């Protein structure tokens, strides 16, 4: 049911109407699905890229300090400014940096944020660009703290590079990776400003994750009741996910 913004108490009590409506609302299921894709892919990308980068940077003889400083740059920027940046200077057709590169390579011009097929990939790329440095810095700090003797011993035992990584490095930095996964999952679930600035949830509903759907319902379509119900579902999902993750983490810490 709808609530008048200026007099929200006039509508009466809706009971569970708003929640019942959600079950039959394809836009809700679509946004839930997008939330899942967005969260899972950004977290996986950040961890994989951040870990690879950290391993790479550890092996270069100099320039580590420069990498650390460059990594701070995206982190401190306001997500909304990052979203606007990408929308205009990086991803806009013809003028944007990415288009300049793809045109130079003969791959043609693309409407990265206007094409429903590409828009979701684009907003995932934006999030990954801004927050991979977080994973990188946390994992790098953890890697730097490892003692070199462990690896010396393994090298004497002729363990291959992959074996050293799989059986020594990875278990030792697992706590750092777990922290990154937990924090980034929570933050991906509450992502809003960058997508709002880049696509506003569009084109159509192709980047409308649950956050955007709740916002649009509440403040564009002025249906505060249903918007609040969507937001409550999002809160419940976030709490459930964080509960499960901290459980897993505690078990991992004990084992």
């Amino acid at each position, binding site marked *: 049911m709808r609530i008048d913004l200026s007099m929200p108490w006039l509508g009466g009590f809706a009971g569970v109407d708003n929640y019942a409506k959600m079950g039959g609302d394809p836009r809700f299921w679509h946004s839930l699905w997008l939330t899942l894709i967005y969260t899972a892919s950004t977290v996986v990308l950040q961890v994989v890229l951040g870990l690879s980068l950290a391993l790479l940077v550890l092996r270069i003889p100099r320039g580590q300090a420069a990498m650390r400083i460059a990594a701070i740059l995206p982190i401190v920027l306001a997500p909304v400014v990052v979203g606007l940046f990408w929308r205009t200077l990086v991803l806009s057709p013809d003028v944007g940096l990415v288009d300049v590169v793809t045109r130079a390579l003969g791959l043609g011009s693309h409407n990265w944020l206007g094409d429903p097929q590409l828009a979701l990939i684009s907003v995932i790329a934006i999030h990954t660009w801004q927050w991979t440095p977080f994973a990188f810095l946390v994992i790098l700090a953890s890697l730097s703290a490892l003692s070199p003797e462990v690896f010396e011993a393994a090298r004497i035992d002729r363990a291959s590079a992959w074996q050293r990584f799989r059986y020594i490095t990875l278990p030792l930095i697992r706590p750092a990776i777990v922290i990154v996964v937990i924090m980034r999952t929570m933050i991906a679930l509450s992502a809003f400003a960058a997508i709002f600035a880049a696509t506003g949830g569009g084109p159509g509903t192709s980047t409308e994750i649950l956050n955007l759907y709740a916002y649009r319902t509440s403040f564009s379509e002025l249906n505060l009741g249903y918007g609040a119900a969507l937001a409550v579902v999002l809160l419940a999902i976030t709490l459930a996910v964080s509960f499960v993750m*901290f459980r897993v983490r505690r078990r991992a810490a004990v084992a």
Partner: protein
Amino acid sequence: MTARRLRTLVLIGLAALLLAVWAFPVLWALLTSFKTERDVLAYPPTVIFEPTLRNYRDVLFGSASILPNLVSSTIVAGASTLLTLVFAIPAAYALARLDLPAKRASGFYVLATQMLPPVGLIIPYYLVLQKIGGLDTYGGLIAIYLTFSLPFAIWLMVSYFEDIPREMEEAALLDRAGRLRALWYVILPQVRGGIAVTTIFVFLNAWNEFLFAVVLGGNRVRPVTVAMFNFISVEQTLWAKLAAGAMLAMAPVIVLGLLAQRHIVKGLTVGAVKGGGRT
């Protein structure tokens, strides 16, 4: 030996490429902010052009001025940072030192408030502020900012207080200084660094905030994150002005980020590191 040198070169090349990927959009915006709107649209993009300061002049003093918005952001972020410190320091000290009954529970509560998606909180905030006439006021927005900056600051400060040996204040307490005087004269000077880092992070988060600002602000209270949309509309994009405005909006946080660079990891993982259960 040469194979090894080659590998090092490849690694450095890869690292440099990634460095470029991170730094380039920002450098590109910096470059764009000195172009005329016509130079921006040139293809292939020009790297050599006649730099102009007109965008900055327009964005600061012209018809599209974001100066009032920079002032708005400074007031909101500055006041909420100040208030946060005033409340967070004693609260964190209490959590770190006193034997409080619900320590664990309050620790988890503080952590949970960090995790909740702001979209889930915005409607109740909106309705409450509307009822008390707090929409589009500095007081209203600052109060809402405290809801996310206080828990964050408390968590961060607790970790700094816990690093200080208890003996220090025990000596002060034996000399019959009260808790508050011990905190003020003995403990606070020890956590000066921690307070500086906390200040930077709290200010940064407040300065960058967008959702609360756009929904709970308005024409009077309009932080710079919201004002960025002035330069962009369905009909046209003011590329160079957007770039200049963004550079101005980002300058303070970039400076603060560089100042706090050694502490970034700690600031970002606060709470998660200790996992809610205090030991």
